[in-house]
């Protein structure tokens, strides 16, 4: 039986490099066709509604921006144990706080979580209000696409290329900024 696989982009497309996950998903959707057992989804900035997308699947590939102190544009791979190492937040105030690790723990508790997890993390540079990615994030998006495809291959699923030569540096999406728009600056703390 074919493994059920979800490829999900996480992040806000309105907050600079936080939108790199959905951007990678848009690239994948524009350039590739995946077999029926593979779901490609822009998951936005979910809270526990993420559990619904994690339940009943065998493998999960997530693309998200990460704050790991590396040079902007660095792509780092994390597996399940890296994500779950720190557990849920000690105090939860609103439905966003739990997000990824808590959603995974809840899916595990219900016995419905994916066995295989790969999180492709892209170190962001700017997170101010604005729909534009930095060059570093755009370039890293191309690397992330290659990582997704390699993981899909490792999991034994198939895909075909619909549009060749699509370059992450020049690909645009519905949320791209108007010509000449500059991201609004958050005042420094």
């Amino acid at each position, binding site marked *: 039986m074919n493994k059920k696989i979800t490829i999900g982009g996480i992040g806000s497309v309105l907050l600079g490099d*936080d939108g790199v996950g959905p951007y990678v998903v848009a690239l994948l959707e524009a350039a590739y066709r995946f077999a029926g057992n593979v779901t490609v989804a822009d998951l936005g900035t979910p809270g526990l509604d993420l559990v619904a997308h994690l339940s009943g699947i065998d493998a999960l590939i997530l693309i998200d*921006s990460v*704050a*790991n102190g590396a040079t902007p544009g660095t792509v780092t791979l994390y597996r399940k144990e890296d994500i779950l190492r720190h*557990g*849920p937040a000690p105090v939860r105030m609103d439905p*966003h706080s739990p997000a990824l690790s808590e959603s995974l*723990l809840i899916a595990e508790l219900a016995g419905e979580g994916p066995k295989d997890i790969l999180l492709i993390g892209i170190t962001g540079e700017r997170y101010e209000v604005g729909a534009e990615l930095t060059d570093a994030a755009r370039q890293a998006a191309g690397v992330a696409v290659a990582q997704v495809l390699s993981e899909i291959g490792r999991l034994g699923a198939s895909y075909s290329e619909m549009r060749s030569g699509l370059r992450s540096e020049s690909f645009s999406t519905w949320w791209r900024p108007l010509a000449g728009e500059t991201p609004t600056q958050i005042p420094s703390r």
Partner: protein
Amino acid sequence: MSTRITIDPITRIEGHLRIDVEVENYAVSNAWASCTMWRGIETILRGRDPRDAWMFTQRFCGVCTTVHAMASVRAVEDALKLPVPANAQYIRNLILIAHALHDHIVHFYQLSALDWVDILQIPKADPAAASKLAESLSPWTRNSRNELKAAQDKVKAVAASGQLGIFQNGYWGHPAMRLSPEVNLLAFSHYVQALEYQRKALQVVGMLGSKTPHIQNLVVGGVANAIDLDNQSALGIDKLEQIRLLLAEVARFIREVYVVDVCAVAAMYPEWFKIGSGVTNYLAVPDLPLDSNAAAYDLPGGVILQGNLGAVQPFKTASDPVFRESVTEDVTHAYYQGEQPLHPWKGETEPQFTDWNGDRKYSWVKSPRYKGQPMQVGPLAQVLIGYAQGHALTKKYADLALGQVSAIARVNATPALLHSTLGRHAARAIRAAMLAELADKHLQLLIDNIAKGDLSVHNQPVFPFGEVEGVGTHEAPRGTLSHWIVIKGGKIKNYQAVVPSTWNASPRDEKGAHGPYEASLLHTPLARPEEPLEVLRTVHSFDPCMACACHTFDPSGTQIARVKVL
């Protein structure tokens, strides 16, 4: 001599809701609610096409996606005085209902039940006794001894592994936890089952909206769903029947599990009907329009001031002139520039960040006011406003819930008890039961309308040359949401979203009046100030959501929270 406690979950790079309380003699003597994240996301909309705005606003918040999409198209339609075909109203209503049912279930079970349920008591429970107790409360078929034993085994396995995982950070064994092991087990077993039913509700959102979490089927003037009763790929009989079955399963869970659990937990913590009232001014807008011109609604709206249900002031429409004229936002204690309260159409979002200073500026949330008054919004506001107007469906489920509490606790539970922390939970369950019943009604309205031969889903928007203003409202899971738009020459000139959590989490205003979270915390008793479970109970009862956004994953484990006692 007072102690200051700060609860500040630092979960993502931008942070969220922060609560500060002063504690004197084991009770809260002062409180501050602040949002630690800049809320200026509306500025991204200026200069864009109003027809695209909903795609962007849907990204304001990843939990409340659909609600911001809906308020946005309604704002543009209001500005253009553009009616929406009846089919589109029903499809939108069904999406809003399904999303709300998902949200309410997740809120009670996954986000707040563990404030009341002590996981570590579960291994001591007798599954047979728990099953017997459950049967006395509800006809739900999944309360068998075996089902409960399986739930208990899950908890035992987690405890035996030494890794508490999802449970590692609860205030287990806290003196304010008081349920019997059997009730703890029952609630936990429903915590696991709830995951299935919230998913079914989301499935409905996906079937009608074509995707979750971001629906794709909206357009200004209606929806983009193709209706064809005989075509399997369009919205036809097969899909509508599937939606009916899913909604029926969710409705059953709500009636037989969610409402029952809330009443049972409430009956065992009756003192929490006297804690957490705070601001008793309530605001709700009418929602679930019943026809193309939105002349009638299934959910009533209005205003209650100072808890006086007898003097309820109803709103006739979702953009009632009184509502339109009465909303302002003050920034005296928020990190923005500005001298006096401004109407949202004139609203400005110019940041002026200073350090946290409880006497001056301390939050990124503005202070919205209705005729200058702080207002509580949310299911409680909606239920009280409906009840006060004698709204039949509201009365039906409110009286049912109060009756259940009365029977279990052997008290006479009246609507007056609802001005409280538990009242907010009870009202959310009441609202869920109302919506579950309305889901079936609106599905039938849609089918009947299509059967009449009306396949229309969309009216074409036309933009006037000059400047127009509009407000789009929605009674969202967390309360009154309003999007305020100014359109000039077919482009967005100004856009402000006044979200439910802005009303509830608002800081003090220019007159020093507390916002609803702040006011609700005053006088709350704390058994152990260093473990402020009681503060979380009240804050969680509002279902806070800080129009949030950034979701950068932090692998270093800095998902720390500070509970700082000074």
